[in-house]
């Protein structure tokens, strides 16, 4: 689906018109295509306080072929600005963050990346230190709203001892894979990580289940995960079987027609994975439905069907996989699809929002057990994603819905898929129990 307004705003006449009238100027986002370099230009790395990540960041960038430029005076345009603020001890230290960022952001190219690192505010008993750490959150989110031309700003909290876990978030947030992820805060933790990763095919040799894979976001997830090297078991309801088979055949995966709300669904899925693949590495709980009505007009059937598909089935299948002997392979990943509706609420979607908020709680609660067993579970919460479903919305509703975010445009299914594929990577084991929004920093649900 083309974004007619974005295309117009980026045309010759459109650039002039939108500039003169002060209209939004949505950028053509830098999205990942295989073979892309991590960044299309140099990066700078700065510090606020006596940080402990600067050297690690420089070596990560250098290893990825990125030129690390000098923060001082240089006029060269930058593809990314990284700030190590793990050293901040009080509000006074934040001035150095400002001093580094202000000139650096002026040099930021279109589709640039701002990535800030701090310590988790909760992991200190000093009110001043916690305040300074928490201040980074407001700083980064505001930068995200000030940046234009497809640039994003995100924040990674790194507890002491979890330094090795930053490599995967760095690669994701700097790359085109995170095109529509903006204003997000991810807290990493210490984890068993693989020694090296095939950057082009991080999921090579993995078996991944994707539910709701017949169309829309689910099909994009299946394609992206297959592109990254995994064998995809594409799951959808039997009635969607023809589209499901098409997706499976396109990506060289297999189709499994299964109603995930059937009483024996979890058993059948576990048996299938055991018999056909000897286990599973990645499970993406994407299947979801909407049955919108104002709460006062909502019948029990609408409420129950949404809960059954969007929440109960995810709980049942996740638990069945954890309980099954030897089905989850080392370093297993579960990624659940939540929604910004579950964070901000949405009129007419009490059932949907409740189920999607429930996902966030489920992920948080499962995270310690997953960590103990060497796995990780996370959620992504898509915002306004352009699909067949949104194409059916009334024009004005769709236009407003797609523009009220820092990117001034709707996201694409592939943006959700890239974020999920990142969380599924072996190297992302240090990201656990998190909910990452893919919403272009939507005004709703921020």
């Amino acid at each position, binding site marked *: 689906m083309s974004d007619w307004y974005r295309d117009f705003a980026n045309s010759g006449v459109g650039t002039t018109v939108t500039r003169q009238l002060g209209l939004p100027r949505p950028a053509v986002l830098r999205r990942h295509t295989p073979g892309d370099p991590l960044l299309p230009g140099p990066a700078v790395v700065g510090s606020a306080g006596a940080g402990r990540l600067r050297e690690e960041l420089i070596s990560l960038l250098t290893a990825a072929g990125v030129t690390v430029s000098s923060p001082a005076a240089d006029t060269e345009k930058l593809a990314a600005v990284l700030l190590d603020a793990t050293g901040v001890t009080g509000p006074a230290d934040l001035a150095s963050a400002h001093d580094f960022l202000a000139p650096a952001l002026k040099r930021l190219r279109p589709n640039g990346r701002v990535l800030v690192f701090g310590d988790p505010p909760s992991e200190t008993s000093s009110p001043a230190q916690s305040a300074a750490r928490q201040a980074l959150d407001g700083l980064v989110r505001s930068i995200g709203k000030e940046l234009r031309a497809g640039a994003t700003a995100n924040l990674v909290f790194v507890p002491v001892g979890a330094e090795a876990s930053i490599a995967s978030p760095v690669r994701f947030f700097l790359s085109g894979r995170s095109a529509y992820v903006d204003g997000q805060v991810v807290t990493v933790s210490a984890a068993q990580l693989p020694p090296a990763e095939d950057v082009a095919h991080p999921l090579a040799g993995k078996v991944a289940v994707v539910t709701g894979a017949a169309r829309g976001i689910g099909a994009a997830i299946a394609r992206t995960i297959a592109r990254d090297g995994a*064998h995809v078991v*594409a799951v959808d309801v*039997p*009635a*969607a*079987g*023809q589209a*499901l*088979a*098409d997706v*499976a*055949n396109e990506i*060289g*995966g*297999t*189709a*499994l*027609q*299964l*109603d995930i709300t*059937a009483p*024996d669904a979890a058993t*059948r899925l576990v048996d299938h994975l055991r*018999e*056909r*693949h*000897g286990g599973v590495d990645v499970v993406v709980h994407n299947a979801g439905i909407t049955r919108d009505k104002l709460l006062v007009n909502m019948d029990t059937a609408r409420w129950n069907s949404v809960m059954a598909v969007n929440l109960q089935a995810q709980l049942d299948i996740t638990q069945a996989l954890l309980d099954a002997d030897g089905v989850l392979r080392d370093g297993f990943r579960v990624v659940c699809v939540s929604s910004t509706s579950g964070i901000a609420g949405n009129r007419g979607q009490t059932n949907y929002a409740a189920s999607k908020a429930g996902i966030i709680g489920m992920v948080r609660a499962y995270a310690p057990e997953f960590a103990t067993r060497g796995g990780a579970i996370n959620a992504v919460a898509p915002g306004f994603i352009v699909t067949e479903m949104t194409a059916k919305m009334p024009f004005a509703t769709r236009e407003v819905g797609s523009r009220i975010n820092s990117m001034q445009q709707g996201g694409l299914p592939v943006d959700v898929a890239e974020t999920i594929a990142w969380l599924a990577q072996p190297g992302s084991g240090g990201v656990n129990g998190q909910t990452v929004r893919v919403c272009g920093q939507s005004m709703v649900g921020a």
Partner: protein
Amino acid sequence: MTRPDTRTAAIVGGNRIPFARSNSAYARASNQDMLTATLDGLVARFGLQDQTVGEVVAGAVLKHSRDFNLTRESVLGSRLSASTPAYDVQQACGTGLEAAVLVANKIALGQIESGIAGGVDTTSDAPLAVNEDLRHALIALNNATTLQQRLKAISAIRPGQLAPDIPRNVEPRTGLSMGEHAAITAKEWGVTRESQDELTVASHQHLAAAYDRGFFDDLMTPFLGLTRDQNLRPESSLEKLATLRPVFGKGEGATMTAANSTPLTDGASAVLLASDEWAAARGLPVLAHLVDAQTAAVDYVHGGEGLLMAPAYAMPVMLARNGLTLQDFDLYEIHEAFASTVLSTMAAWEDPAFCTERLGLDAPLGSIDRSKLNVNGSSLAAGHPFAATGGRIVASLAKALHEMGPGKRGLISICAAGGQGVVAILES
């Protein structure tokens, strides 16, 4: 030179599209469309993209002349490797099962490691031919070389020849439809209207129950918006069926209605067979093995035997070869061309006179435990796209046996036009 020891071919799984009533959901779909979609569903289920399968064997009963290479063309249009060989077979309603037997035999001999057997039929996109007289005139015109010859050929064409030659469900040698033949046999065996309607209701109920428990989730892929067999009537009841008037047979004794006879149907099916080793190497299941099969034919023109009674003759030959009795099976699949066909066949096996005089046995084959018969529904409910029925039965029976555990035996009996029949044994 030594020949390899024979082995028994494994049934890995199957796929079919829901069967549609004639001139309905699949009215615009060709045999090639349906067979290709069915192969693609099988490919998706078992991850066979770009793989070369030993052989694909399928056929259609009603076939356009352009479809002379139907199966190979379908393979080329599918996600299988283009280096997969294929050929067509046709044995009327026995086509699908015969295709499975052919594939299984090549696997048994070690000539191939894997194969797909299938069948497809459409009564909607049927091959109309030009009138036979017109065809002769057109051939003469085509062969004419001079203007004079051309004018002469054209002058032979008459308006009456414009009426097309429509394929009919009629036996060429008797001029009787299959239903009329079946009605004669039903009368001979004294098959009652009530017993036919009971079998029909059971077929619908069994098929509906199988859908409800997700039995077809890994046996079927929807096509053109159809997600279930269109002919299925879960609410079918004896009372409702009793109100229908007979359509085959004449007068008082007529018992065969539109409900207890299969309707004209469109659809396709495919079964994946392989050696155990091939399946194991790919982590694919073995649902059952195709143990043995037998065909027979009867002289329904002059020999006084019913058109659809050939399976009754094939059965004892196959049972004897395997040292089994008719009762040594856990499940039975007798194709429901007509309810009366199933009942006539079973009556014949129970009849001492028939078994001794016609089959040359010492004693009757005996009765079948009806609770083991067509337990997941059969053609009366699902419909019967002629060549697709065999594949439907083989895959469904293999799965049902697999669910029951190892060492379970199933029996298949399919009658076919031309007085033919195919029977087979599966074992999990």
